[in-house]
């Protein structure tokens, strides 16, 4: 039956096919070459890792648009730490991300500041501090970090993180709670579940993953300038939504949707660039695509709700 098909997923598959067909034609076949595909995979890895963190926040129906600034800050600190002790690179980046995440989670869950506004404030202030610190310098990454920019390392790390996050999201109480918060926060409160605690944890996890993404971001670019990571937050959010994660969160949040969405959003950008579209035009198309996707996502989920009163009416006069 139609009911069994996940409509959001269907939307993503349609978009994928559309993007592939259109760009394969407009790029005169340059889209699906081995080199370009490797390039797409390489580019989407950072987005996917950041998305693995954001998925908990998205499941709660919240947002965290600090991905870019957290990744940049964590990346720069990780590079600085790596110069003296390479072993501490990952812990340092994760700790920086954790602090950002805890702060946002605390502001959101305890002071009830909407996550979008709270993370926007952190984004602005954090970016300012970052620009002030880096100023016009370029902070180069040491060789150890640059060595991480290899698919042989990146793919196993992504796989490992995906399994870990996938496990938490699908098979643990925590994963079920965050999805339930996205469905109906009040109901979760009435179940006696400590919503505040799990919200803070979700934001903390998103921060940690942004931190890890920061290492790979700096490894790929070779160094950090003050613009490092700008626009990443939107890329990560688009990856989730284009993959079919419902905008309002909930049980439709699945890990494979992100793994589908991350390459898809990179593919969209890559296809536009290869077709000779100018930079601003690419951004314009991306913006419009995001709007369309979010609209579709909300729309597809609404249909389910509208069905409810009808069936209730139909069943009430009949047998119990």
């Amino acid at each position, binding site marked *: 039956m139609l*009911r*069994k098909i996940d409509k959001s997923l269907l939307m993503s598959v349609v978009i994928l096919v559309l993007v592939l067909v259109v760009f394969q034609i407009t790029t005169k076949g340059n889209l699906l070459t081995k080199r370009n595909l490797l390039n797409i995979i390489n580019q989407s890895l950072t987005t996917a890792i950041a998305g693995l963190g954001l998925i908990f926040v998205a499941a709660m129906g919240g947002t965290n648009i600090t991905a870019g600034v957290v990744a940049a800050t964590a990346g720069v600190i990780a590079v600085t730490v790596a110069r003296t002790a390479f072993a501490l690179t990952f812990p340092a980046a994760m700790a920086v991300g954790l602090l950002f995440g805890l702060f946002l989670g605390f502001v959101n869950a305890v002071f009830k500041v909407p996550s979008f506004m709270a993370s926007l404030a952190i984004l602005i202030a954090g970016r300012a501090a970052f620009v002030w610190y880096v100023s016009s310098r370029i902070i180069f990454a040491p060789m150890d970090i640059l060595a991480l920019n290899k698919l042989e390392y990146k793919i196993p790390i992504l796989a490992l993180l995906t399994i870990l996050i996938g*496990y*938490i999201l699908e*098979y*643990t*109480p*925590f994963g*079920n*709670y965050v*999805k*339930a918060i996205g*469905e*109906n926060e*009040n*109901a*979760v*409160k*009435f*179940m*006696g*579940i*400590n919503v505040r605690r*799990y919200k803070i944890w979700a934001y903390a996890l998103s921060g940690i993953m942004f931190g890890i993404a920061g290492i790979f971001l700096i490894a790929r670019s070779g160094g950090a300038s003050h613009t490092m990571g700008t626009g990443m937050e939107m890329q990560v959010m688009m990856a989730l939504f284009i993959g079919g994660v419902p905008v309002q969160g*909930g*049980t439709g949040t699945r890990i494979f949707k992100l793994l589908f969405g991350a390459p898809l959003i990179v593919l969209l950008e890559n296809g536009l660039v290869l077709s000779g579209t100018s930079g601003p035009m690419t951004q314009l198309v991306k913006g419009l695509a995001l709007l369309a996707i979010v609209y579709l996502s909300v729309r597809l*989920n609404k249909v*389910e*709700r509208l*069905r*409810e009163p009808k*069936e*209730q009416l139909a*069943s*009430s006069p009949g*047998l*119990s």
Partner: protein
Amino acid sequence: MALLFFQKTIFTPLYGLNFKNRGAYVPKDRDDHGLMLNASVRDNLLVPSARRLAALKNAFGFIAPKRVRALTKEAVDTMSIKTHDANIQKVGSLSGGNKQKVSLAKWLVQNLDFLILDCPTRGVDVGVKGYIYEKMLEATKEGLAILMITEELAEAIGMADRILVLKDGAAVRTFTRSEGFTEEKIVEVMM
């Protein structure tokens, strides 16, 4: 019996506090406070039991799919919830009576010590109403204590061992079944 005074805000003392006895509150506003309408029957049943089912009862413990299936089956069978597929069907697409069965089933499978039911038969058709009463009595026989908050006098007279009348934020009087409930006596106190 201090709990009884908190009719409107009864959940406040409930969560956050450590009761020695395990209990739950089934809210009056089923759709907004009780259920996740857009989630499947399975997910609605799973969330309150998640911690109990998980390995080590930890928030990051493994919930075996086998145990989720068993829980869903048990809940659907206990309350005979009419659903074509509990894994897929959204609670929002169930009838009012079946929705209420889901809200009750998710707690009844947990073997709790007490349940606070806030207007459990509100917006439920007559057949299911009787069924819910039946299940409540069955559960009390197995040792569950039920505190039912109700706006229907007949329901209280029919079901309760003790009736506590609340008026203007205070408990006015307690009636017990042994002294005999009559509508006139109770209404007199309520007025």
